[in-house]
């Protein structure tokens, strides 16, 4: 006589898991605490407006406009003029060495072309490794430029004023071409938080059974590995959704992130990502001998996820080998999905290429996990 999957046993495990989750203050704190902490750390810390950013100027056109603009920059809180440069090479060096966060280049013939109405370019070199600093400062500069020009374009040149931007500010951001900012980070946090908690919580939930000796009892009953595994996964899927909703709400209402795409679509796709992370947690738990080891493995997975996925550093800025590694990680694809849906308004067609790698990963890992699940204590 064979004993297949039993709904009753499965339901028993789910119910037990929910009770234990409710009683376990630490897990409960982790479930709510991690997203909140991360929101505060990444969301608000980045929010602070930096000031007095070291700025160099490369003036190749000595006109009244240039002088006036530089004066305006000096007066503003955001820029601190550190040096006046003479060559473009020097400008690049300053940025590379981190001596200047910005270099403003006023090109030759700026004034003449301005007066002819040719909308000349002003070039701003920016070190965008700290995206928040960069983005607010650039906003300020645009404002300064418009006001300076409005002031200086008088008399017969007044006609230039009304036009949208008599000059164009061209920003050349190095190191962080995608200019990851709060808009990028807060939705990205959803993926990071899910990775962290889903992997850790499941890994701990299962190793806890072996560590406390309850696994011996569980294995002496008729429960089957699949029932235990699924029974432990289901409650945490719910936890994942609670966390995701929390962050989504924070993104929308606290950080004012515009939501361009469909939230329901995001919620549906998210299940694949959550399952992938739970699968890792389960697989870790089948390898780890105790909760400490499970915890260590969790962090071992978490670190590359956060570093190589494009959350911390722009994906395209990473070396090729790191990009290849990153492509394997579910977080990399999930970040593209979240940002795609929330910021760019992507639909199912655009995100499909990012969904299947996560699914593939989940299936692969889950197979390892189920295979390794010890039906006995051997």
């Amino acid at each position, binding site marked *: *006589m064979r*004993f297949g999957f*039993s709904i*009753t*046993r499965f*339901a*028993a*495990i789910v*119910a*037990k898991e929910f*009770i*234990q989750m409710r*009683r*376990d203050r630490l897990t409960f704190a982790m479930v709510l605490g991690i997203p909140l902490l991360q929101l505060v750390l990444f969301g608000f810390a980045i929010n602070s407006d930096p000031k007095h950013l070291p700025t160099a100027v490369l003036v190749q056109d000595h006109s009244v406009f240039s002088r006036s603009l530089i004066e305006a920059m000096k007066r503003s809180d955001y820029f601190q003029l550190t040096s006046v440069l003479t060559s473009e090479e020097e400008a690049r060096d300053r940025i590379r060495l981190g001596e200047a966060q910005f270099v403003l280049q006023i090109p030759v013939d700026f004034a003449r072309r301005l007066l002819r109405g040719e909308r000349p370019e002003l070039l701003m070199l920016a070190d965008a490794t700290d995206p928040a600093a960069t983005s607010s400062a650039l906003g300020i500069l645009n404002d300064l430029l418009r006001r300076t020009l409005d002031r200086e374009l008088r008399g017969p040149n007044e006609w230039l004023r009304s036009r949208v931007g008599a000059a164009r500010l061209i920003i050349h951001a190095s190191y962080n071409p995608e200019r990851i900012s709060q808009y990028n980070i807060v939705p990205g946090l959803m993926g990071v938080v899910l990775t962290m908690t889903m992997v850790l919580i499941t890994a701990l939930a299962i190793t806890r059974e072996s560590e*406390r*000796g*309850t*696994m*011996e*009892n569980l*294995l*002496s*009953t*008729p*429960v089957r590995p699949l029932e235990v595994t699924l029974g432990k996964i289901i409650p945490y899927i719910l936890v994942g959704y609670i966390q995701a909703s929390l962050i989504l709400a924070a993104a929308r209402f606290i950080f004012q992130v515009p939501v361009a795409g469909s939230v329901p679509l995001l919620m549906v796709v998210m299940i694949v990502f959550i399952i992938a992370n739970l699968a890792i947690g389960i697989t870790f738990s089948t390898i780890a001998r105790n909760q400490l080891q499970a915890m260590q493995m969790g962090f071992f997975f978490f670190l590359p996820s956060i570093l190589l996925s494009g959350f911390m550093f722009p994906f395209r800025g990473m070396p090729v080998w790191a990009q290849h590694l990153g492509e394997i990680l579910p977080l990399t694809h999930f970040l593209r999905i979240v940002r795609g849906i929330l910021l760019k308004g992507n639909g199912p067609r655009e995100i499909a290429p990012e969904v299947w790698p996560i699914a593939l990963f989940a299936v692969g890992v889950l197979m390892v996990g189920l295979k390794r699940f010890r039906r*006995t*204590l*051997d």
Partner: protein
Amino acid sequence: MEAADPKPIIDVRDVTKSFGSKIAVNRIAMRVQPGEIYGFLGPNGSGKTTFLRMLCGLLTPDEGEGTCLGLDIRRQAAEIKRHVGYMTQRFSYYEDLSIHENLDFVARVYGIPQRRRAVDAALDRLGLSARRKQLAGQLSGGWKQRLALAASLLHQPKLLLLDEPTAGVDPKARRDFWEEIHRLADEGLTVLITTHYMDEAERCHRLAYIAYGRLMAQGTVQEVVANAALVTYRIAGARQSAAAERLRSAPAITQAVAFGRSLHVSGHDRSAMEAVFRDVLGPDQTWEPIPSDLEDVFISLMRRAEDNFK
């Protein structure tokens, strides 16, 4: 007709299990009849727990074969688990679940019909109905054991495996426990129980003694004692500890243990032992033969195992 020779509940041969290079259970054979209370004794680390785990499908034996409840221990572990109640050595129910929740979980996992009624009845029998909401982790050691026994009986198993169920339990509770076990056995339940207590060993119908993973003796208490062919004397008189020292160093004497004001001295060769007494003991010390008890026998078995297998 059939009843004269019923099918054994446990019938295994050559069961062996190693962990790495260490052989924890070494070619053990065991046969337990229905309704029997079978005691399983042996020093710490002798392989008792490992053996029980193999019987209920928690570990796969490296070698050996046999049946448990008529089911093959290798191939039908899943089916065996449904009819065996296993009470682990260490409390292994959920400390963060209440008494009621633990019992309810067990009842659901075994798919017990009329679950609520069964759980309530178990709580009543335990006398824990009033404390059903208390977390299992907050129970005292003795109560945990009672809870574990109740939980392992919930699905009405045909075989009960108890791994040191009375360790750390007070004498009154132990007595109650054994009364319950005998009552269950009278109803037809078969019980295999490990223990370190001699009085408990004597309450078993039959017993087995293992040391270093090997079966050293098997049978009723009387058979085990008789088969050991151990000779024991009681020595009375002054200066017990000094005498014990000297007696122990003699090859003819396997053990000398103090019991109150007297010494129990065991060996195998009656005349050689008496020669030692005449040589070593003072004039104020007397000796008289007494029947060996189970403890004398077990200690001597353990010594023998040490000499042979260590």
